[in-house]
């Protein structure tokens, strides 16, 4: 009588039995464990990868630009755009300061850059899908939750929401569904600025406010800080409200470093209760 033999199986799982997808899943779960148990070690481990990713993204941008235009023109365009952002931000800031400049409130003004803490950006959008910046500075360097992050142009970007020993995370104002109280236009109309992800922001406002393209949007800080300008007004004739599409003064996709400053804003809750009166 012929006997049938079944193949002997190892009682333990071996990697060769696993599909590639399952191996990837195991790797992701292991990384999740490392992040939860030792967040600093995790960021030290992944920061070099992000830096390589940054270099690759920069090279891709130059490569793709070279198809339509010369690489030189693209680089010049980038430089001019950054300079323009910086000038618009500075202009708006100065205009605001001139309005505030009276003997009673001059005390509130401060020199730009004074007491700032510089931090390199490790990860940023568009690789990061939640509009969060990961910074290579942590509590050891003096970073604290609630500090405000500013682009090199001086435009506010977001608020530090999480800090570990050597790294920290800034949630951008453009983070999806993030609501920030602020003001818009020459009349400083109080509004709620809503993040739409990917660096975009929008505001719903009554048509009667007469906000036009080019009006500046402000967020609280020491005084009113220019966050962006109204780039488009979506006007639906059947609705009493208009939607303002806000173009940030600083592009979070290209921010290499930020300045961190304790502005007295402790967290998102404070942004939500900002009054219509400029501080």
């Amino acid at each position: 009588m012929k006997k049938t033999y079944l193949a002997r199986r190892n009682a333990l799982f071996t990697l060769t039995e696993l599909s590639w997808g399952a191996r990837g899943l195991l790797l992701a779960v292991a990384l999740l464990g490392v992040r939860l148990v030792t967040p600093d070690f995790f960021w030290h481990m992944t920061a070099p990868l992000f830096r390589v990713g940054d270099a690759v993204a920069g090279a891709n941008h130059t490569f793709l630009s070279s198809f339509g235009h010369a690489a030189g023109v693209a680089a010049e365009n980038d430089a001019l755009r950054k300079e323009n952002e910086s000038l618009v931000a500075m202009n708006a800031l100065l205009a605001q300061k001139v309005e505030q400049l009276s003997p009673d409130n001059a005390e509130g003004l401060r020199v730009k850059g004074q007491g700032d803490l510089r931090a390199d950006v490790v990860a940023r959008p568009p690789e990061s899908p939640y509009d969060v910046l990961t910074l290579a500075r942590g509590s050891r360097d003096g970073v604290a939750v609630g500090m405000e992050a500013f682009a090199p142009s001086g435009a506010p970007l977001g608020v530090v929401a999480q800090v570990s020993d050597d790294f920290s995370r800034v949630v951008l104002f453009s983070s999806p569904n993030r609501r920030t109280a602020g003001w818009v236009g020459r009349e400083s109309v109080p509004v709620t600025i809503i993040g739409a992800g990917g660096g975009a922001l929008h505001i719903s406002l009554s048509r009667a406010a007469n906000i036009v393209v080019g009006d500046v949007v402000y967020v609280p800080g020491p005084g009113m800080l220019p966050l962006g300008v109204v780039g488009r007004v979506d006007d639906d004739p059947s609705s009493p409200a208009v939607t303002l599409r806000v173009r940030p003064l600083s592009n979070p996709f290209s921010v290499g470093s930020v300045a961190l400053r304790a502005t007295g804003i402790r967290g998102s809750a404070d942004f939500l209760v900002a009054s219509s009166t400029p501080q």
Partner: protein
Amino acid sequence: MTRPAVTVVTFLSVVFLPWQVTVLCALGAAVVEPFVPLAAGLLLDVLYYAPQTGLLPRFTIGGALISLVASVVHSRVRARSM
């Protein structure tokens, strides 16, 4: 050879390419490797998710749903081809 390639490319895209590209890679990979969308979604959230944004870890959830659908389709196709 296709299976390891799509898995590795999807994982590399998480770090080196915009997340939209990762989503496309994961959807493509689901055709041959049902677990890749879940793994890529989890990796995206491990690297970038911040609970302070007040959002759910949507890439893990989305990846799990796509992997579930892909697994069901795979098992049906396998059963039919037997």
